[in-house]
């Protein structure tokens, strides 16, 4: 690894995974596979516990702001583990000179989102640092949720089988493009808004009506390709994805064509990947499509048997290629 930390190590791709493994997980004695939330057994309860930091630049973007992002991100990490999110802690590191009106707007936004999600922000911390010692505002949120024991396998994927179908709840890449566009320094403007949203109600409606969900993960930094590659490691086998089934909005496509981005590697903040038992996929799809956050849900692929832990993309023109883990500089400070 480099002597100095590079941006690539914060991007959710290969270098980021390496940093987490070799520096953090090793020192903290984390030996179990890392999941979106830590699942903790306490007498009588199974808790899901998670934490995340938010350093998005700019702080305000179409579809959201850093506060909404922080709330939704942590709620979603709990929800995709199958837990009911309950309590949130929020810490703020604020740069000296930061406008109070902006801070109030961000905090109100968090509060609104917390009401929507049905969670309570119960504790927190504030620090102010001298001008220049942090970039405007950083937020860290931690969350606790309660998990039914029968849903525990959803975060580990232990019950995944060949033939299981893969579903995504809508178009990819909107968040990354909205944030990039809001920076206004890359010479383009876009009508795209971030998909930032709390997904716990959507997920609950699926889990309540359907037993077939074997695994869930939220698709954030590193995009769909990262989650699919992580999935091959978890399950130990391959995945086939149909490129034409993966929803991508036209303005996102246009930007990707121009800048050479692949929508499958772009960050999202309102997308969840489901692995669903074969035969249950239509039921899950219908439940998702009846919700505004899942209107464009699509069955995009399936788990395939075999020894190769590869994600194969069947291209829209009938060819095929491997979809690898993203590597190197993608888009910095999207989340």
């Amino acid at each position, binding site marked *: 690894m480099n002597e100095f930390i590079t941006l690539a190590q914060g991007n959710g791709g290969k270098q980021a995974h390496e940093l987490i493994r070799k520096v953090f997980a090793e020192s903290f004695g984390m030996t179990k596979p890392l999941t979106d939330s830590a699942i903790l057994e306490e007498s009588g309860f199974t808790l899901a516990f998670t934490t995340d930091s938010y350093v998005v630049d700019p702080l305000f973007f179409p579809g959201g702001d850093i506060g909404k992002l922080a709330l939704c991100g942590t709620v979603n990490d709990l929800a995709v583990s199958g837990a009911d999110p309950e309590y949130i802690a929020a810490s703020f590191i604020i740069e000296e000179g930061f406008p109070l009106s902006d801070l109030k707007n961000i905090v109100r936004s968090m509060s609104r989102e917390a009401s929507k999600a049905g969670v309570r922000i119960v504790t927190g911390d504030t620090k102010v640092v001298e001008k220049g010692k942090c970039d405007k505002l950083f937020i860290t949120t931690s969350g606790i949720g309660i998990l039914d024991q029968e849903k525990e396998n959803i975060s580990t994927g232990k019950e995944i089988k060949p033939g299981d179908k893969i579903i995504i709840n809508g178009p990819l890449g909107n968040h990354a*493009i909205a944030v990039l*566009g809001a920076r206004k320094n890359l*010479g*383009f*403007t*876009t*009508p*795209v808004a971030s998909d930032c949203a709390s997904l716990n109600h959507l997920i609950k409606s699926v889990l309540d009506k359907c037993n077939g969900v074997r695994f869930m993960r939220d698709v954030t930094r590193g995009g769909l390709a990262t989650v699919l590659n992580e999935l091959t490691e978890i399950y130990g086998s391959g995945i086939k994805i149909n490129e034409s089934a993966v929803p991508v909005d*036209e*303005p*996102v*496509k*246009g*930007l990707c*064509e*121009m*800048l*050479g981005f692949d929508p499958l590697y772009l960050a999202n903040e309102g997308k969840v990947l489901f692995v669903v038992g074969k035969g249950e996929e239509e039921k899950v799809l219908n439940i998702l499509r009846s919700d505004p956050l899942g209107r464009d849900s699509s069955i995009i692929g399936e788990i395939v048997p075999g020894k190769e832990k590869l994600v194969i993309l069947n291209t829209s023109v009938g060819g095929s290629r491997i979809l690898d883990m993203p590597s190197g500089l993608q888009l910095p400070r999207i989340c």
Partner: protein
Amino acid sequence: MCLSIPVKIVSIEGTMAEVSAGGTLFRAGLHMIEDAKIGDYVLLHAGFAIQKISEKEAEETIRLFDELNESV
């Protein structure tokens, strides 16, 4: 970097234009295009429109493709 894509001119101001790729707007220098008009399709490369797209030729290509499709 070497990427060029077909985009539609949506507005023109002097030598610069606003062009659309599926709804995302970019700026493009029109210094290399004669008689650029709003609604024209051009190839956008590294911040410049480098050539107009001939609708006539494109339609001809598509027509040949359609013939190919039908003959299969």
